[in-house]
């Protein structure tokens, strides 16, 4: 067979191979051990020396041609075959399979989850207490004297003379200390209530996380370290933290905690009121009167406490400008998180 007819025959046989088996037969026919192309190559050495280069070139070309045609045909055959006997191609595979109804955690749960994970990693245990609380735990035990103006900052919903809706999560501190001995390191979280008129930055119901660490010789320096670690974990390691003196009845010394504005990174913008700082939590060393109320000796034990609004943290973190969105439960809002 001359080279030309051999080439034609190769092309025809491969082209006509209807399945893997026919293709394999064609391969054996040309490229098998006794295949036509293989024999051609074997016979080169028997040809006159003058013809050998030409014959060699032709044989090699045919070999490469056969190989590449087989490869191509194989791809074509594979594509035409069903991938699985359990599969029938649909009419249109581009149709959506899901109606878009996906589940999302509420953004407050999400933020609280992050906060909790950070604190658990730092050795804080989760504690809880009732939302309908005794006035004693909400105020007196926390060193809010009766008829003291410090109570004005926490407008209260009353249930009875001595029962109220807790205005902060701090009563959990007192309840926990009453039942446990130091060392203790807890966070408490949950719903709190203030009888305030509602606007984009004020809600009658919001959420707090509260932390408490009591042991012998816990210092303001420890508070600063823990809070700084927490804030840098939550908002990024470049965030700077500042403590400025403030007043809370149940802590002393007390500090308001500011962090560098996440928008302008401290240079001053409209989000932080041009100060470069954003108020993020209140904190301080547990007041001796609180220890006395739970029967701890303030000369033996010291401790710190801090608290922050989960709603506020979420607002800062996600640029949410209206606190009412949280309990509004508009799914167009919720499904963004």
């Amino acid at each position: 067979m001359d080279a030309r007819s051999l080439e034609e025959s190769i092309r025809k046989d491969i082209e006509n191979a209807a399945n893997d088996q026919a293709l394999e037969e064609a391969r054996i026919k040309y490229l098998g051990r006794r295949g036509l192309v293989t024999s051609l190559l074997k016979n080169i050495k028997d040809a006159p020396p003058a013809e050998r280069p030409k014959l060699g070139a032709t044989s090699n070309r045919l070999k490469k041609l056969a190989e590449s045609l087989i490869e191509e045909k194989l791809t074509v055959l594979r594509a035409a075959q069903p991938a699985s006997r359990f599969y029938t191609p649909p009419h249109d595979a581009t149709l959506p399979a899901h109606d878009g109804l996906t589940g999302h955690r509420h953004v407050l749960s999400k933020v609280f989850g992050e906060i909790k994970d950070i604190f658990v990693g730092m050795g804080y245990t989760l504690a809880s207490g009732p939302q309908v609380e005794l006035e004693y735990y909400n105020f007196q035990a926390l060193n809010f004297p009766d008829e003291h103006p410090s109570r004005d900052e926490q407008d209260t919903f009353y249930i009875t003379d001595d029962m109220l809706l807790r205005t902060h999560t701090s009563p959990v501190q007192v309840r926990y200390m009453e039942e446990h001995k130091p060392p203790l390191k807890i966070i408490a979280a949950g719903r709190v209530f203030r009888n305030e008129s509602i606007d984009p930055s004020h809600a009658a119901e919001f959420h707090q996380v509260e932390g408490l660490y009591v042991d012998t010789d816990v210092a303001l320096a420890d508070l600063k370290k823990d809070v700084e670690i927490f804030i840098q974990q939550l908002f990024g390691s470049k965030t700077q933290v500042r403590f400025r003196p403030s007043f809370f009845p149940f802590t002393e010394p007390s500090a308001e905690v500011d962090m560098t504005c996440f928008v302008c990174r401290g240079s001053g913008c409209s989000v932080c009121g041009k100060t470069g700082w954003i108020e993020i939590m209140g904190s301080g060393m547990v007041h001796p009167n609180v220890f006395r109320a739970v029967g701890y000796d303030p000369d033996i034990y010291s401790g710190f406490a801090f608290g922050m609004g989960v709603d506020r943290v979420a607002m800062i973190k996600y640029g949410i400008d209206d606190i009412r969105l949280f309990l509004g439960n508009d799914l167009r809002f919720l499904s963004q998180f």
Partner: protein
Amino acid sequence: MLVSLSWLKKYVHIPTDTEQLTKDLTMLGLNVEQCIERGLDIDELVVGRVLEAKRHPNADRLTLCRVEVGPGDVRDIVCGAPNVAAGQFVPVALPGASLPNGMKIKRSKIRGVESNGMICSEIELGVGEDAAGIIVLDGEHELGSPAGKLLMPPDTVLEIEVTPNRPDLLSHLGVAREIAALYKLDVKLPRLGDIARADAPDFRIDIADATDCARYVGKRVSGVRVAPSPTWLSQRLEAVGVQSVNNVVDVSNYVMMELGQPLHAFDFVKIRGATIQVRRAEPGERIKALDGKAYELNKEVLVIADERESVALAGIIGGEESAVSEETTEILIESANFHPTVVRKGRKSLGVDTEASYRFERGVDREMCHLAAHMAAEMICEIAGGEIGAVVDNYPTPYEAKSIAIRESNTRRILGSPLTTPDIAGLLERFGLAVVNRSDEVVSVEVPSYRPDLVEEIDLIEEVARLYGYDRIGRGWNFRCTTFARAEAFDQFVEGVSNHLTARGFNEVIASAFTDGRELEDFEWPKGDLRRCPIPVRNPLNVNHKYLRTSLVPGMLEIIRRNIDHGVKRLRIYQVGKVFLAPEGLTQLPEEESTLTLAMSLPGGTDFWYDSRSELELFDIKRELEMLFGSFRVELGSDICYDFDGATGRFTYSSKEGTLVEGGIVTDRVARRYDLDQPVWHASVDLAKCYELCTRQERLEALPDYPASKRDLSLVGPKGVTYREIEKALVRHAGRLLESLVVFDVYRGENIPEECTAYGVRLNFRSAERTLRDEEIDRIIDKVISKLKNELGVELRS
């Protein structure tokens, strides 16, 4: 609290610029919320001198002036003010000037005469209320120089957030003391004239209760002329947010803003019997106060009374009748100290809040009374004329100076900073606390009368810390932890439930704990169910806060309705929250049950191509609940059973502990109330009870060594027999070799007797010890079939 820097400078030197001062004060605990720049900075407002003033040729009421507004620069200006006269130095707005009231000055013709500017009045420049005439500047001034500075000196006002423990900072003097401490400076106290002049008093002061009123200083001033205040005084007050009234009232406010002592000025003539009584109000006593309102008093209210009736509410507000008016010439200045709680209770019972009550309820320095009265008297004489008269100082409860000790060791322990005794003493002295005793370990200081917040050692430690600088504490400190923690088990359980549900396509919602109570009519909760009597809130904000919720369902329906309004109609939501349950007449804290509520809703009609069904049905929510239980390995049948009321669509799941889940479809009655036009299925889960079931100790059961044998049965249940009954009988009679069973088909219709149901049930048998023989299983099946027939009338389908 608004403080003016120029006012502060009367008491203390300020060695830095405003920006630094703001930072330093903030870091000292006096949070500066904003800085307000004040001053009248108007281009083209200059000092001019009226050279000539003559009547306008075409108008009787206008004056044609020649005004020199710069050396040699003389202009014609038409002026309408009656008080303009030659020789006056006046503020002139030249063409091009823009005034604070929006007026732009242009060259113009007034009644045919050219006018090249305007001579200004107070109201036009916004520096006072006087609109009757132009401002005439006192003294001589450089012509053409800016007039704004003369009329309203530039000033910076700081708005400082004052915490409730620091009443002393509600005055310029108090803030000046902090600045002095900050920059190691001295406070310059005001120099006053002879304070102890001893005229025989022409009045007396009776204090009924020395606790209610620790001190009452009355000081007389005679022969005053009540008039508007001079500009500097009204401007100063305005800068710190106080409206000018008249010279006498303004002086008392001025002294309050300066020294922190609230004062009141009585028209002495109106005090009948020349007697001041400090006593509690009689029930039913009435008074018309300075705010124009009539108050009915009660015994909580402390009053100032003359020999007939109340003339003022002590520490709160003066009475209208005894107030200083334009006719007043004889004055009695009150500078007193009333008890914080008494003032607070009184003003709360009356619903008033004033600058005076604000200070008294936080605590005012009783040592300041006399000085403040005297300062006011001197100022009144200076501004309103008159002469200082007699003073009565009734001081039944004098301030007793006490000292507090602070330990070096405790300071270090609390702060974590290596401060020494000399450091501590030095810092406290900067605050004006005199060291009365000192050892290697302890410093004792005397607490001044103006610092009621300093009670015990920790208060001093705070003072040390904030002056030392919070930012210097704990530098290079290491994280310290003496506890170990992991997430709490119940919390992790709830977290697991939440994650399961979100993966199943449920959105978490968080709703209000309040309810308006409208669900009470429509949710047919059984009699005696605690959900029927929600706990009322005593002082609700509005009708939505009337009660605490007893169920999460109403709130969820509200959420569903709102979302449908927004066009979101396919809803799968869940909420984990507290419900509040208590018997009526609350005597102890209510039960707060952690509840999970699921709700699913779909509009009628197919609205997604891939869903074959368009209507939600019971099994949709049942599946969710059973998957949830299944994921915690809680077995239906053995651990919990369920009851389904076919007529109403209600169902419950219960265990030995009681009801775990309660749910159903929203009834038409409820749907109407919430304006819902599509089916809603819901289920509420008692999480605490489920937690008990779902977290039992588990041990591995060995995997089976021997094969299972399957048998399929086709059973026909007669009318009225439920699948659960058949299953129970099957399980009971098949014995322990039955490993599991599953319904693979349910059929009603042709070839089946009417009202009967055919169930295809696959039984799985297995032994842990051996391979089961067919005959063995055949025997079991025969027994089961005969028992089913006998007990329930269930036939094998032929």
